[in-house]
């Protein structure tokens, strides 16, 4: 599959309109076509893996935008991750990549420490690395919302990397270790349902694991998107909220295009949180661009920043004074640069939690 995607994408320009990095960098070499052509050229002896070519290789954001717009479903992000694995194994990857890998191996986390769950419940809330270490308020708010509808959850995977980051950087063995650890922790709780906070985890558990790591999420444990779950309870009248009031713009989180069934439910929650439909970015829904919350934040921080700033500029153009999102990784990146755009950053779960009625 990997060789085929490189071969098919190297001269294909059909996802250019939706490819985020090429759009913000204006550079052919960091488009899906450009990156595939670099990889194909190394295979043909026209280039070698060196600082320059590896820099292009690590510009692929692994956000799913190219594949979401590919009618022949070329798995270029997976192919690039596989090539990065060979580059990493040869010791050729950027030093920042090895540094974050060390943390991932040592702590099971790219951002802090991992904490293992205690106790059990019918349902678990998968917290993950970003929520636990970068945007912890969303976890308490999510639990408050779930309590309000009578769903008790045990938090799992607190500070745990799911394997997405290691896989995307080029360390599939570490990614497998993380994946197995996450699944094992969920199993120990006895949960039959795992709620996830954001599309990144939905994608990782249901798609990345089987496609890239050869690991299958246990069929007896239902994977449920928290936003969709809450939106359904809201529609049923089980989740009862006071009226919200804000003119915020909604930022589709990184990886949104990999879980397109969430577009409507998450917007229903936004309406509840804001008291009106959110202001919409130009790069939204099917064409939603990521912020720099992927492996780019370590491997190509300049691109990560450019992506995040592009989303903030997009939000600013809507006339909004704040931006709303549910994904802790996206929120963290947005907040780093939001003051430059006179924008405030708010978590969707936190906003909803403040509106909870008894």
């Amino acid at each position, binding site marked *: 599959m990997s060789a*085929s995607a490189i*071969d*098919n*994408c190297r*001269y*294909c*320009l*059909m*996802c*250019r*309109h*939706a490819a985020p990095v090429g*759009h913000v960098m*204006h*550079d*052919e*070499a960091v488009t899906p076509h*450009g990156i595939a*052509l*670099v990889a*194909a*050229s190394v295979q*043909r*002896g*026209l*280039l070698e893996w060196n600082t*320059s*070519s590896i*820099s*292009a290789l690590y510009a692929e954001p692994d956000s799913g935008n190219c594949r979401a*717009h*590919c*009618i*022949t479903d*070329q798995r270029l992000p997976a192919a690039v991750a596989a090539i990065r694995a060979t580059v990493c194994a040869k010791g050729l990857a950027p030093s920042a990549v090895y540094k974050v890998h060390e943390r991932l191996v040592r702590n099971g986390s790219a951002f802090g420490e991992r904490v293992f769950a205690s106790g059990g419940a019918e349902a678990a809330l998968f917290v993950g690395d970003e929520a636990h270490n970068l945007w912890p308020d969303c976890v308490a708010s999510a639990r408050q919302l779930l309590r309000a509808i009578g769903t008790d959850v045990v938090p799992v995977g607190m500070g745990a990397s799911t394997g997405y980051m290691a896989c995307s950087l080029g360390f599939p063995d570490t990614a497998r270790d993380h994946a197995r650890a996450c699944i094992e922790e969920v199993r120990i709780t006895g949960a039959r349902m795992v709620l996830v906070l954001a599309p990144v985890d939905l994608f990782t558990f249901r798609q990345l694991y089987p496609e890239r790591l050869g690991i299958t999420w246990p069929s007896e444990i239902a994977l449920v998107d928290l936003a969709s779950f809450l939106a359904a309870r809201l529609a049923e009248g089980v989740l009862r909220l006071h009226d919200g009031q804000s003119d915020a713009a909604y930022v589709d989180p990184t990886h949104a295009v990999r879980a397109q069934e969430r577009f409507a439910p998450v917007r229903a929650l936004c309406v509840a949180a804001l008291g009106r439909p959110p202001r919409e970015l*130009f790069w939204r829904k099917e*064409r939603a661009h990521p912020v720099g919350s992927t492996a780019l934040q370590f491997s190509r921080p300049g691109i990560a920043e450019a992506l995040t700033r592009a989303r903030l500029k997009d939000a600013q153009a809507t006339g909004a004074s704040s931006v709303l999102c549910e994904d802790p990784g996206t929120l963290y990146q947005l907040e780093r640069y939001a003051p430059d755009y006179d924008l405030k950053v708010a978590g969707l779960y936190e906003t909803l939690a403040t509106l909870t009625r008894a």
Partner: protein
Amino acid sequence: MEGLQAAMIRSELEEVVGAGHISTDATERLVYSTDWFWLPQMWLDRGEALRKPDFIVRPGSAEEVSAVLQIANTYRIPVVPWGGGSGSQGGALSICGGIILDTKRMNRIIEIDERSLTVTAQAGINGTQLEWALNEKGLTLPHYPASANCATLGGYLSPRGTGTISTKYGKAEDLVLRMQVVLPDGHILRTPVVPQHAAGPDFFRIFLGAEGTLGVITEATMQLDYLPAVRLLRAVLFDDLGAAIEAGRLIMTRRLDPFVIRLYDPRSTASRIRKILGYELEGAYMVIGFDGDADLAALQEQKAMEIIDRLGARDLGRGPGESWWNHRYDFYYPPQSLKLPWMYGTTETVTTYDKIEKLYYAEKRAVEEGFKDWDIDFIGHFSHWFHWGVMVYTRFIIRNPPEDAQAAARLHNRVWNTAMTAVIKHGGMINEHHGVGLKLSRFMRRQYGDAWPLLERIKQALDPSGIMNPGKVGF
């Protein structure tokens, strides 16, 4: 280019665009060394290196383009404008090195005039992104090329591109009202506010089809339309290709105003339609569409169907027509598209109705007989219809070309020579919408005959140092 000269030029270019917008990186230069022309792609595929640009420069304004061209003139180095890199003719190849001028930083929409129905945008804006922005206001730029996802507005205009719905709305060149152009000496000019007037000759059209050999288009004002209330599509099947062409002619000359007539020859019907849409049919598959207000479109369709019925076609209904519309670009996604290691080329041409069928068969015969040892496949569709004639998008495919790059290049050029000789001999143009680029450059003198020296004089007057996209469009 190396050493002191390269350092001198780079430092001057950096002063214009900033160090972050210029690259001499080897990897980037390789990526920019090919566009969508089969020949350079094959060359890289076989592990052969291409001539790379020396500098990739990304200007952010017409003023920066101007300054870059002045530097290029000082040092007499080539400048190749670059949009999406989606040209199939080699028009963006830096065959003499020099500067690739990537216009994609110039991607702003300057104004959408909802009263006059125009948009003014910088030339580096991506086609689909522009269309998305217009669609948010219920508007459309009715130029729907298959390359829209990657091509830029400048790339629409520079090779005189044509889109899927040109039969009603015209080619890109018919939709442009005004342009900003930077001449090779750096002079920035704006063409008159509207194209239809009687205040002197229509000079601005010389930049359309010049493919960056006479200057750089940096901004354009384009005519828009409202998104249509309906699009009525259906497909019909003709036993006889000649009858199908005649149906198209009658529909056009009676001004029934279809937005699309896409007629596949029997070979394309059996191969491409089967592969992409899944219909197993024998004959000539035609998709016909009418758009706009529902009642008017329905009446136009009814009149067209009367003609089609009279000429003996079988109505396949709306489903196959709508399926084609919904999947019209699927033909271009690998592995469904034509792709390496195959050899292929699109020898599209246009001529008047009295000549088109003879031309099609003459080219088909010449190519099929000339290269039967290579088991060459010749397919085509008639897709851009005018009041006076039609364009035929003919393609050749060789599934087992020579492995050796040099031998493959020679065979490729021989097929093109054969095809273009047949086209010119039978009154066709060497191209209708892909442009000339490097691929067809050698045929321009033959195509234009007595008129060619005039084009050469224009080139000499505007670009005396010959820096602009050398080797292309016959220059």
